[in-house]
């Protein structure tokens, strides 16, 4: 299906990616692009290969075929921490925060990429290192305020209410100063008001120019905020276009409603 694409060059390109687990084909042949500043949603019924796609893009899963390019750099063979170092940062569906560590320290860990501490300076506790640590703490507060959980800074990550744990997961990813952010079902399990708060946060991030790729089941949210929607079913892309076009696409309707079961 051909799509009208924005004029800017894509910053994330997924080309002919296939993932096989033994005989099982998780993704058969996936091609899509994400452009600078765009918010793209990846949707599809359970087991369609959305999370696998995320794992391939972020280096947690080697693709059987094909390759992924981010801002002109091929991600093939890179380890996850190297992908993060390029500015492509993800969140997780489940394991989203460090449970036994305070919220504030969680964000400090997230700021790992921003630390320029030298081992020698650290051991001698040089003024330069202490200033850097101070600046880092200030930055952590800023991120907590942006996400809106600064009042819980001293709580343990695992003791936060569910919605706030999700926000902390995003705060961790934001701390890694992402150029593009990959969110894996960020609002699943959130109630309506938590979801509304989360959408506000996404708006703030977009205003800062962050590119976002979203995997989500919450259809009203997806249709409301996405610039473009990519629909996966049985490991292949069946539709790719703006929300209005997707909602009336016959193949999408068949995939979601054809079996008589509504997954959304």
């Amino acid at each position, binding site marked *: 299906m051909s799509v009208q694409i924005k004029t800017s060059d894509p910053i994330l390109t997924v080309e002919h990616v296939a993932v096989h687990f033994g005989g099982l084909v998780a993704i058969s042949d996936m091609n899509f692009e994400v452009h600078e500043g765009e918010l793209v949603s990846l949707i599809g019924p359970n087991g369609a290969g959305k999370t696998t796609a995320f794992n391939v893009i972020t280096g947690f899963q080697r693709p059987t075929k094909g390759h992924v390019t981010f801002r002109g750099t091929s991600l093939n063979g890179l380890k996850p921490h190297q992908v993060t170092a390029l500015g492509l940062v993800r969140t997780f569906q489940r394991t989203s925060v460090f449970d036994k*560590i305070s919220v504030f320290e969680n964000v400090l860990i997230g700021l790992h990429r921003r630390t320029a501490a030298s081992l020698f300076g650290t051991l001698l506790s040089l003024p330069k290192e202490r200033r850097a640590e101070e600046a880092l703490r200030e930055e952590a507060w800023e991120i907590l305020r942006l996400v809106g959980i600064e009042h819980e800074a001293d709580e343990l990550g695992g003791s936060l209410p569910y919605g706030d744990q999700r926000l902390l997961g995003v705060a961790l990813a934001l701390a890694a100063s992402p150029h593009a952010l990959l969110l894996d079902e960020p609002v699943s399990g959130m109630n309506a008001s938590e979801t509304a708060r989360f959408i506000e946060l996404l708006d703030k991030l977009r205003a800062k120019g962050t590119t976002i790729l979203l995997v989500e089941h919450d259809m009203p949210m997806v249709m409301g905020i996405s610039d473009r929607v990519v629909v996966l079913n049985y490991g292949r892309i069946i539709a790719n276009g703006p929300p209005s076009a997707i909602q009336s696409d016959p193949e999408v309707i068949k995939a979601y409603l054809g079996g008589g079961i509504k997954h959304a």
Partner: protein
Amino acid sequence: MKRYLPYLALVFFASVPLWLHDQYYLHTLVVAGIFMLAAMSLNLLLGYTGQLSLGHVAFFGIGAYVSALTSLGFSISLFGYQITHEPWPPVVGMVLGTVIAGLCGYLIGKLAFRVRGAYFVIVTVSFAEVVRLVALNWVELTNGPLALPGIPPLTLGFEWTGYVTLWGKSQNYYLVLVFLALAYLVIKRLVHSPFGRAMIALRENETLAVSVGISVTKYLVLAAVFSGALAGLAGSLYAHYIQIIDPMVFMFLNTVTMVIMVVTGGKGTLAGPVVGGLIFGIAPVILRNYVGPEVQWILYGLLMIAIVFVLPDGIVPAIERWFNRASSAAQKSEPSLALQTGKG
């Protein structure tokens, strides 16, 4: 109050030789201090990165042998060449022992951290066994089971200050105390820095840690290098204090002693190995009046099981929790549980 506890402890321990004149007790404390140092090094790996090194005594023994051989000198034939080493000052041996043990930590880390968890345990156990067999069988170098006797004690000083050779118990006591304080400071700064945060993050949730850009091998190897070097330093102190070493230093029991000290004291806390080291360093002295050494070991096992059952995190975290609860009950103070690092 909590902040000054380490300084109070330091002052107290510094005062011990002033009122404790029994040489045997002092000797016990010196040996306990050396093992405490080894336990602190193990804690860096086991407590902060979550990787259990069950061959930690290898680094200790390597430090001891390297230091001893450097200060004793040796003459061996290797691949047809005759290599002769003239004795060097013990201080040089101590530096070399620390550096070489750190290097071994680097190699083991590089090799073993491709596979973590149980595999790391197996690699470290095997490493310790290989080193023990080398020490036992390379008779030309190590004297094998006949031991290396007459290791000179440490001599400190410069030409312009005059030299002091540490023969006495209290001199060695202070030497060990200084190194303990330094090691405590180094570990404290390390674990409260971005480096330590990365290690703790890997322990808590490796997938998440990696996703924010933390390199697994880099930080685990870093911990292994520091851990190996500190254990090597402890071994070197041991060699120059006891003045005789044989392959028995590599026995598994020594690793177990370190593990028990760390686990009962509280792994992942700064004070844990100190508290655990004191308990299991002093216990033999108290127990020997009542039971034989074999029974003692059974008792240690039982004591450790009891402590782990009652206080699964160890003694220090339990005291901290109790202290926090008491203080927050007394006044509504701010909760202050940062990383799992005690400041005792």
